[in-house]
């Protein structure tokens, strides 16, 4: 054994025993600049592709110059296509995809469950019921009512609150298993109610179904402005907890002996992630798979620390949904494929490919 002297002993009154640090040779898990640059580049590439590709042909150079406020040879109609149709859709895709991925990664961390996704505590079922009730209530056969986003938001948050309350009441102070089970029970119950309401009003099935599969097709700047404040708050809160989520990975008891209030931390993360998820689904409908596939792909390729997983999930999640939306509106143009179908159809094989490649190359641990 080495005879190197360990650090001196601290006491509660002494904030730190290492006031005069030496140059450390150990390093902590951190987001490598190469990965950060790759994430930002993927957002830019996906964003420009989303602006350029479409029925109206636009040169990438002109699109970039227009965004930069420089003179272009584009006519007013082409500028309107960029700024009023494609740009809000791209921005919304980035916001929704990034938020759902970040929330999924946070849920997986806080529940220590790789199958957790942003809808774990019933957000999707609550949003689905809220929207179904509003659509059925409107019953005029027209487009989705204006109140649908509000109903989705309220339904999602209400379902999570109900699941959290039930989980706490039945599982004591620290059980994550009881929270997950409560989420499953609430989701099943709300889905049953939603299905019943839908069956009783079959003339609205198509509208409800379209919403449930998710869409960015009606995106406008209004949707972006509605989502943006919630998304920013969610991002700030969750990213600020990236190191603490690594501490929670050792379990509540050990985290407690390390000075972390596990239950309080979990509540803050759940509230922030649920707020972001509810806001995202209120403007985009239920887009499945993003919250699971992107964080796990990041873990396989870049590392498992939440310091790495959370920021990269935000960036790659946005880029992924932007590309998925691009495919959704071009593969069977002029018709659109529901974006939820695209995320699962292309996302699942891609994920399997990453999983196999990373194991073969020894990327993962």
């Amino acid at each position, binding site marked *: *054994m*080495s005879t*190197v*002297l*360990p*650090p*001196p*002993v*601290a*006491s*509660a009154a*002494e*904030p*730190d*025993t*290492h*006031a005069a*640090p*030496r*140059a*450390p*040779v*150990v*390093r*902590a*898990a951190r987001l490598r600049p190469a990965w950060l640059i790759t994430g930002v580049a993927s957002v830019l590439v996906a964003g420009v592709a989303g602006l350029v590709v479409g029925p109206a042909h636009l040169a990438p150079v002109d699109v970039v110059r227009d965004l930069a406020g420089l003179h272009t040879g584009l006519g007013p109609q082409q500028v309107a296509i960029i700024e009023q149709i494609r740009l809000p859709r791209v921005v919304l895709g980035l916001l929704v995809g990034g938020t759902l991925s970040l929330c999924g990664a946070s849920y997986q961390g806080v529940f220590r469950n790789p199958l957790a996704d942003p809808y774990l505590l019933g957000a999707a079922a609550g949003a689905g019921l809220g929207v179904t009730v509003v659509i059925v209530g409107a019953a005029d056969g027209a487009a989705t009512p204006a109140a649908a986003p509000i109903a989705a938001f309220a339904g999602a948050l209400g379902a999570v609150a109900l699941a959290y309350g039930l989980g706490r009441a039945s599982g004591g102070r620290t059980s994550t298993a009881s929270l997950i089970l409560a989420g499953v029970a609430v989701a099943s119950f709300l889905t049953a109610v939603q299905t019943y309401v839908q069956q009783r009003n079959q003339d609205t099935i198509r509208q409800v179904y379209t919403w449930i599969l998710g869409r960015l097709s009606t995106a406008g700047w209004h949707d972006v402005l509605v989502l943006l404040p919630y998304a920013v708050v969610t991002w700030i809160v969750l990213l*600020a*907890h990236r*190191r*603490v989520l*690594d*501490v929670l*990975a*050792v*379990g509540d*008891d*050990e985290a*407690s*002996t*390390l*000075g*972390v*209030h596990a239950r309080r931390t979990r509540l803050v993360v759940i509230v922030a992630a649920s707020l972001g998820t509810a806001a995202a689904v209120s403007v985009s409908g239920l887009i499945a798979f993003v919250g699971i596939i992107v964080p796990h792909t990041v*873990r396989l390729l870049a*590392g*498992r*620390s939440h*310091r790495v997983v959370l920021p990269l999930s935000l960036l790659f999640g946005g880029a992924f949904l932007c590309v998925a939306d691009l495919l959704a509106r071009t593969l069977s143009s002029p018709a659109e494929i529901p974006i939820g179908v695209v995320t699962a159809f292309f996302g699942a094989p891609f994920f399997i490919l990453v999983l196999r490649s990373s194991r073969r190359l020894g990327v*993962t*641990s």
Partner: protein
Amino acid sequence: MIDCRAATVSYDGHPVLRGVDVHVARGEWLSIVGPNGAGKSTLLRFVAGLAPGTGELFLGGRRAASLSRRERARLVALVPQSPVIPEGARVADYVLLGRTPYIPALGVEGPSDLAAVHDALASLDLLAFADRIVTTLSGGERQRMLIARALAQGSPIVLLDEPTTALDVGHQQQVLELVDRLRRHHDLTVVTTMHDLTLAGQYAERLLLLDGGRIVVDGSPSDVLTEANLARYYGARIRIIHDGGKPVVLPYREEHTHEPQR
């Protein structure tokens, strides 16, 4: 350093610890022994703040109930028997968790924290393992890593719950020698729970024998590890021999009085 008065802990209304009084001096090594279900781990968890109960607890002269979690973590480090190891974590990252009580709640570590991790790894001869994935370590290396995390925590009180479980006899001795060396270098107060009575008697200065949630014998290893005590509280057939003044516990099998059936 630890002053525990009338500690009582119940699980689902069933008392597991019944009015335990124990005082541990600074720099002392106390080992808690006793049969299964005696309350050894519960007493350790009570001191660590993980088993809520009644009674009073003072840590370093301060009332434990008045300490915040972070303050308590700076006073007491726990090495659990079955730690949760995050999948894919590197050794350096795992040891860095010990610095949590010093890092701002929503901040990240500073150079002083990395220096503390460096020192802890060096003390346990683990610097070469800093970038290894935890799950690739052997049992002995892993136990040293757990102690390194506690050392990085810089707490004057270190609690070890069954630190030699799942280690072979050589690694058991290496780990306990290491704990003893660190204790002496840093005047650490060490409390362990142990099933191996010989090792407990060889390394701890004082033993606390629990039975049914109560202290039944408290004293030096020679006082506690007697054939009469072990027969009474463990129901075990034991012979005690002394090796340099330290008791060695030898379980034996009673001779068969019946002829084997043919």
